[in-house]
């Protein structure tokens, strides 16, 4: 628990959530978590308790209306949560309010939810719970005919949770992702703290976001944050989950694998650099990427190479054309190549896979060859969030990283925005000379060091890429950059 703006916070332990919540949920208070079907509400409520146990030693009571405890125990297993053990330890306790199939109890006269409250209070006291999750309020409404009574009882329940001093998560259903807050349209007025989970189809892609609508009397980050549901890590909020501050900047320089390119960027790139190479098709991007990987191999360092839009076989053949043997490099254990197509998974899942590979393989270098291919699978906003998140992951570990990308039209596309998080941006593209197509390279920016401002000619032969003299002609190499008139004295 941490203090922030006067209201004590309880960290949820959910990846990235405590960052947008500036510490966690308001301690001792109920928080409403609202979302449409399949938006991740149940998972949020479950993780809040589970991570409370594993991360903070907080016992928790789970009140389930929607799913049976058995179904929840099974789901939890896949996330590595062993509820049976916790139940035996007395750190997890179910209050089972799930409905058996076809069960509908008739009513005669007036009633209240006194027994439910007695059961919750009993469970909380019995295991000394600090956290309570209830999934979901909407189910309580469907269970009883008298909606006013249910509403009244839910006010009482919120007051009971307050008086017990537990930090609680109560989920509820929404009919639409962007219309009102909750189905019954009343809960949001009862609760001081409201979080919304959204799951919408946008450009035929599932797009999940989380938003803190209000935390009464305290601060939180605003807006919708991208998140994904990982089979092992549960909810992962991107990119906040990975934006740990960088304490130090590396002063060590490493080679790009091309001595001439090293010279252009001021003697190699810093070890913690993120390099973005924007280049046209067939313009030498993959060659640059392979040379970058080879530099790691020669230095006896591990390199993780993710290629999109190319098969492992094609990549190996390309490499062989320049005397690089990927099989030998992989067999040495220093190189790990993954060649895949963007379509096989969502961009979020590609990201999680790369992140997992990084954690497992601990590379000194990372190559993502063909970042722009991911544009087919993601909204610009999503892709930018992913790239920012990936930047956070590699910076934290001082992994020298090369992203290659095809040029995209306009300067506001995510790839161009990616340049703002890159430390070094290179442009490599075909240019039309008199009667022939030639290639040119330029360094757009290098953070923290001087660089060559010339636009230089590039030639590619069997030995690889060679960077030559500056082009004498004026070229229009950079997208959306005004061209200076030619100096008549030149």
């Amino acid at each position, binding site marked *: 628990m941490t203090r922030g703006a006067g209201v004590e916070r309880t960290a949820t332990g959910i990846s990235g959530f405590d960052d947008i919540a500036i510490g966690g949920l308001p301690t001792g208070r109920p928080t409403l978590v609202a979302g449409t079907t399949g938006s991740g509400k149940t998972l949020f409520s479950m993780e809040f308790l589970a991570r409370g146990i594993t991360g903070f030693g907080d016992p928790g009571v789970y009140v389930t209306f929607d799913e049976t405890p058995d179904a929840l125990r099974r789901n939890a297993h896949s996330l590595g949560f062993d509820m049976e053990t916790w139940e035996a330890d007395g750190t997890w306790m179910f*209050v*089972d*309010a*799930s409905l058996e199939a076809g069960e509908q*109890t*008739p*009513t*005669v*006269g*007036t*009633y*209240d*939810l*006194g*027994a*439910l*409250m*007695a*059961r919750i*209070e*009993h*469970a909380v006291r019995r295991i000394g719970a600090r956290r309570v999750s209830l999934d979901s309020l909407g189910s309580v409404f469907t*269970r*009883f005919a008298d909606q006013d009574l249910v509403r009244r009882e839910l006010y009482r329940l919120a007051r009971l949770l307050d008086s017990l001093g537990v930090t609680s998560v109560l989920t509820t259903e929404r009919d639409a992702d962007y219309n009102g807050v909750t189905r019954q349209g009343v809960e949001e007025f009862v609760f001081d703290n409201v979080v919304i989970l959204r799951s919408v189809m946008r450009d035929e892609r599932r797009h999940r976001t989380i938003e803190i609508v209000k935390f009464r009397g305290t601060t939180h980050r605003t807006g919708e944050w991208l998140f994904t549901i990982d089979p092992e890590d549960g909810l992962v909020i991107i990119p906040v989950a990975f934006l740990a501050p960088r304490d130090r900047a590396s002063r060590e320089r490493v080679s790009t694998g091309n001595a001439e390119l090293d010279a252009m960027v001021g003697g190699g790139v810093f070890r913690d650099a993120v390099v973005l190479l924007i280049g046209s098709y067939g313009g030498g991007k993959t060659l640059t990427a392979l040379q970058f990987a080879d530099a790691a191999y020669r230095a006896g360092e591990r390199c993780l190479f993710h290629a999109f839009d190319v098969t492992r076989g094609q990549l190996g053949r390309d490499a062989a054309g320049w005397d690089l043997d990927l099989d030998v490099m992989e067999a040495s254990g220093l190189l790990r190549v993954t060649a895949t197509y963007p379509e096989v998974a969502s961009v979020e899942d590609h990201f999680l896979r790369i992140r997992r590979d990084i954690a497992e393989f601990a590379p000194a270098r990372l190559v993502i060859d063909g970042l722009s291919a991911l544009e087919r699978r993601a909204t610009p906003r999503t892709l930018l969030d992913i790239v920012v998140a990936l930047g956070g992951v590699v910076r934290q570990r001082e992994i020298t990283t090369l992203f290659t990308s095809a040029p995209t039209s306009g300067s506001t596309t995510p790839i161009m925005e990616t340049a703002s998080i890159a430390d070094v941006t290179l442009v490599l593209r075909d240019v039309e000379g008199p009667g022939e197509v030639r290639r040119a390279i330029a360094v757009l920016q290098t953070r923290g060091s001087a660089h060559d401002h010339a636009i230089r000619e590039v030639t590619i032969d069997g030995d690889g890429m060679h960077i030559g003299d500056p082009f004498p002609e004026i070229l229009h190499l950079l997208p959306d950059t005004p061209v200076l008139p030619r100096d008549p004295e030149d």
Partner: protein
Amino acid sequence: MANYSFRMYVAGHTRRSQAAEENLRALCDFYLPGCHEIEVVDATEQPDLAEEERVLATPIVIRTSPLPGYRVIGDLSDRAKAAFLLGIPEVDGPAPEGQTL
């Protein structure tokens, strides 16, 4: 006539709890004279029992025998309706005092 057993859950000593218990006793005396048992459980005192039966709303009466275990939620203010919902056979003669079907 078979012997009927009922368990009623209430939450605390409230007027509603009292009314529910009175109504249950009255309807049993009328429909099942001499062949019924009633057990009243206060969920606030014995939450474990409430947990076992997964009781949410109170008052609630559960027919524990004979099976099936019919359940009725509420203070049973309409005794005849409550008796019907609890699967208690009808009797000839006037309905209990002050009650209508």
